[in-house]
């Protein structure tokens, strides 16, 4: 399969590789540094924080960070919340985007601008009123405030992104399906979703990461330690009387590793690409 050919000739091929390898190193430094620091003893970090490679790697930092706080529980909570919000935002987000991209109705454009507008007001000033609403609903210290938004389209970012992709899928596809007797619902499920693999997977990825890293939400809405998430546990290691950096870094690695593994393996699904030509696109 040859995509856009940036590489014609051996010279440009090695040039591309050089660029990629250089860039990859540059972009991997923070990760390596995090990992290296997580392997230092607090004494070694104290006496020489700048040293990249630890002289005596201390692997016990990981089990120590894991057991000092109930990280198994935090991880379970995080996985559950994240899985739910990810699935929900892909489904509800693509439904809403379908509504905004394929139908003409009177209030469509004003509503769409309102959707975009929700991103423009800094969240800090709506924090208190939103909190009050959830309190009215007796939902403080539950997961509802964290997962409910995912069922309501998953936010303007997701909806807008999926809409952009739907708009780039030729309308002839839906029309052909409708002539075959498909309902609107079936057009969304059978035509648009299968054609939008990459973007849906991207949305899933962003929802996943957004929730995985979400710190403010759990901080504000959860009170019981047994309901806490990994991102809160991570902050617990910071202390005004001297942070144990190696512990923070070890906990960061624990927090980070599942996402790296996921990104590495899930690419197969979401960046595989689709071939529109097989479906008759020009």
């Amino acid at each position, binding site marked *: *399969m040859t*995509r*856009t050919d*940036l590489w014609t000739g051996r010279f440009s091929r090695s040039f*591309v590789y050089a660029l990629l390898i250089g860039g*990859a190193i540059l972009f*991997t*430094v*923070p*990760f390596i540094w995090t990992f290296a620091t997580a392997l230092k003893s607090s004494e070694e970090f104290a006496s020489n*924080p700048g040293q990249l490679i630890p002289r005596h790697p201390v692997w016990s930092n990981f089990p120590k960070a894991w057991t000092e706080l109930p990280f198994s529980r935090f991880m379970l909570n995080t996985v559950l919340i994240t899985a739910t919000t990810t699935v929900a935002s892909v489904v*509800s987000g693509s439904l*809403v985007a379908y*509504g*905004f*991209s394929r*139908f*003409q*109705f009177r209030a469509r454009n004003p509503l769409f601008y309102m959707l975009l507008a*929700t*991103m423009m007001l*800094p969240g*800090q*000033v*709506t924090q208190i*009123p*939103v909190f009050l*609403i959830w309190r009215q609903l007796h939902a403080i210290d539950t997961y509802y405030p964290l997962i*409910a*938004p995912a*069922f*309501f*389209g998953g936010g303007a970012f997701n909806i*807008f*992104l999926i809409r952009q*992709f739907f*708009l*780039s*899928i*030729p309308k002839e*596809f839906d029309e052909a399906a409708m*002539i075959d007797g498909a309902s*609107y619902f079936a057009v*969304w499920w059978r035509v648009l979703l299968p054609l939008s693999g*990459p*973007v849906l*997977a*991207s949305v899933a990825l962003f929802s996943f990461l957004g929730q995985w890293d979400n710190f403010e939400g759990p901080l504000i809405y959860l009170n019981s330690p047994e309901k806490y998430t990994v991102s809160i546990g991570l902050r617990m290691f*910071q202390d005004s009387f001297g942070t144990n950096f190696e512990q923070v870094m070890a906990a960061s690695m624990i*927090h*980070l590793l599942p996402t*790296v593994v996921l*990104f*590495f393996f899930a*690419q197969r699904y979401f*960046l595989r*690409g*689709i071939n529109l*030509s097989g479906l008759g*696109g020009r």
Partner: protein
Amino acid sequence: MRPATGKRTRRRLTDRPEFWGFLFICPWLFGFLFLTAGPMLASLYLSFQRYDLASSKFVGFENYRRLFTEDPLFWKSLKNTLFYAIVTVPLGIAGSLGIALLLNQPMKGQRLFRTCFYLPSLVPAVAASLIWQWIFNSDNGILNSGLHLIGLPGPQWLQDERFTPWAFVLMSLWGVGGARMVIFLAGLQGISESYYEAAKLDGAGTWVCFRRVTLPLLSPVMFFNLVLGVIGSFQVFTNAYVMTGGGPNNSSLFYALYLFRNAFLYLKLGKASAMAWVLFAILLVLTFVQFRTSKRWVHYEGGDK
């Protein structure tokens, strides 16, 4: 727009596409009405109040007047943010697109490369800010050591107010392999091979293919990244909050940081709400302009023509 399929001329509600369109956006509309609209209006109301959590008093446009006429930090933070947006949005989009184009090539270790470029977006903010302080360390940080090697004097990135804005620009560039790149990549994946084949039959080279095929077909995604990039850059907050707290001499005091300070440190929630609505107005105008001009360069295959 839709071919009429109904047998009757007067159709039932469920036969009308409008009904279905409205139905499909209902999940969002419901969330918006119950969770978002109220708090937004509440903050608008608060922007006309002197409110410090415990007591509130209606003061009309006083919060706005004070912002515009008596608050030099408001203007300073707006200026800092504007600079940041103007520099990082184009750089970020160009960088992300470049990386996406490279990573879209079939090659050995493609998955590994993609993961490497995405890694900075995965590192938790707590760890990332520590790392950045390390990189920017003027005495023996990685960055200045590198500059010394090529014979350049390394500045005090986080202590010298002439350089702090650029330090934050550099930090933002580290994110070019992140979400924006993935979105471009997803966009590139969606472009059918047949377009390129057709172009090549016409004798187009790499550059012409890029100009005539890739760019136009990528324009909806580009537009998305532009709109979101502008909104995001105006709300930049975390790095400055963690690393410099806005200093030195308020050179990294970004708008959202100053807003946060007023809201949660000084408990001036009325003033903070007024600031939020000023930003809202700015972004609304910028987004409107982008949508208006987009008709000239954004190409939708399935859009309403």
